[in-house]
């Protein structure tokens, strides 16, 4: 067997084993993980929707006017960006998009003369920001693959602590919004000050003004707003997770398809080379026999 045939055979083998891996990753992302992630996004919705409604009701009762989490400060000096990327790669443009949006938010806040601090959730974001020279104050790993409310609470506690100690006047949350299985968009949303309209599209028509409160509206609000931030962080984590799995599924599907195409064309080259070799051999034999006959 000629050298060219050996090289081709080896390449076909290597592409085939790569294809096996990408196919496996595609199937894993497609099956239970992605479905479970999408299901959790759905299951978490009622809570944040009801939460938005309650906040709207409280504000209608006049409780929100003085709460620091709801007021836009006259001057924003310290900005905190919380960027949610994935822990693992091989998910198409998923991580790159989040990192790009986070960096853009970072640069635009710097350009406005503000101090910017970063909190990175997800290993990929941490290393990318360090590489780009953006300072990462705090980082979390292991929260995005299968998000738990506990994980969201940890991140939210850090955010609220920074806000209350005056190390952040405004907080932006950068994550991938899961719109459909085929469409995910990296977005930057303002988390603090809370805009009740942002928490969810609550129908403010249903606001009944004459509520009884226990304890007082402002006490309820000061418990409720941190919970609302937790819920928003949780929703963002879930959305990011569902997006990650959807992106990975798509990326791995196209990788598998590409591997198939590559195998097809390599096999063709291989067959051609083999045929050429056989043809050469036959013509050599025929040529030799002719030479003997002539002699």
């Amino acid at each position, binding site marked *: 067997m000629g050298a060219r045939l050996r090289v081709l055979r080896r390449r076909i083998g290597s592409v085939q084993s790569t294809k096996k891996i990408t196919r496996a990753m595609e199937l894993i992302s497609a099956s239970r993980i992605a479905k479970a992630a999408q299901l959790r996004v759905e299951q978490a919705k009622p809570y944040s929707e009801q939460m938005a409604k309650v906040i709207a009701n409280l504000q209608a009762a006049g409780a929100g006017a003085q709460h620091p989490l709801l007021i836009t400060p006259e001057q924003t000096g310290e900005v905190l960006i919380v960027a949610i990327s994935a822990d693992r790669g091989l998910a198409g443009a998923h991580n790159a998009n989040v990192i790009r949006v986070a960096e853009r938010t970072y640069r635009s806040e710097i350009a406005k003369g503000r101090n910017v601090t970063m909190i990175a959730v997800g290993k990929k974001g941490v290393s990318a920001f360090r590489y780009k020279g953006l300072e990462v104050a705090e980082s979390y790993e292991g929260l995005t693959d299968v998000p738990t409310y506990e994980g969201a609470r940890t991140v939210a506690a850090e955010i609220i602590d920074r806000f209350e100690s005056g190390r952040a006047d405004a907080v932006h949350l950068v994550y991938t919004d899961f719109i459909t299985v085929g469409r995910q968009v990296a977005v930057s949303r303002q988390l603090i000050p809370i805009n009740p309209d942002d928490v969810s599209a609550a129908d403010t028509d249903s606001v009944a003004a004459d509520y009884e409160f226990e304890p007082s509206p402002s006490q309820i609000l000061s*418990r409720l707003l941190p919970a609302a931030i937790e819920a928003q962080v949780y929703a963002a984590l879930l959305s990011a997770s569902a997006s990650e799995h959807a992106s990975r599924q798509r990326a791995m599907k196209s990788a598998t398809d590409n591997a198939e195409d590559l195998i097809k064309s390599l096999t063709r080259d291989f067959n051609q080379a083999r045929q050429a070799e056989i043809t050469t051999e036959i013509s050599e034999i025929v040529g030799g026999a002719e030479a003997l006959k002539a002699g």
Partner: protein
Amino acid sequence: MPLHVELVSPELVLFSGEAEMVITKTVGGGDIAFLPGHAPFLGAVSNSAVRIVRGDETVVAAVHGGFVEVSDNKVTILADIAELAGTIDLARAELAKREAEAHLERGQDGTAEGALARAVLRIDVAGTTHLSR
């Protein structure tokens, strides 16, 4: 007209349906029961058992903090953490209780106190359903 009750935790909807009465406990206010026609109400729920009464059956859940909203015969409970009585792992709760008590004896409070309160509530709630059956 019966009440429409929703018990929602951040992770999922634990209960959604009709009921005759809901009993819970507010922060600083003690036990409170909601019957159909209750005035609009908004409260913070303390660590407590929530009872949803529907006919002969009572659904009991351990709610570790949260909020309750009542309007138009709709009761919505937003729980920070919530578990239906049937899903509580009694053995685990008792283990957690003993651990928390041991921590407290050694003088660590704060987190241990919270853990103890949660464990005791879990055991209580799990116990109530066993009795009512």
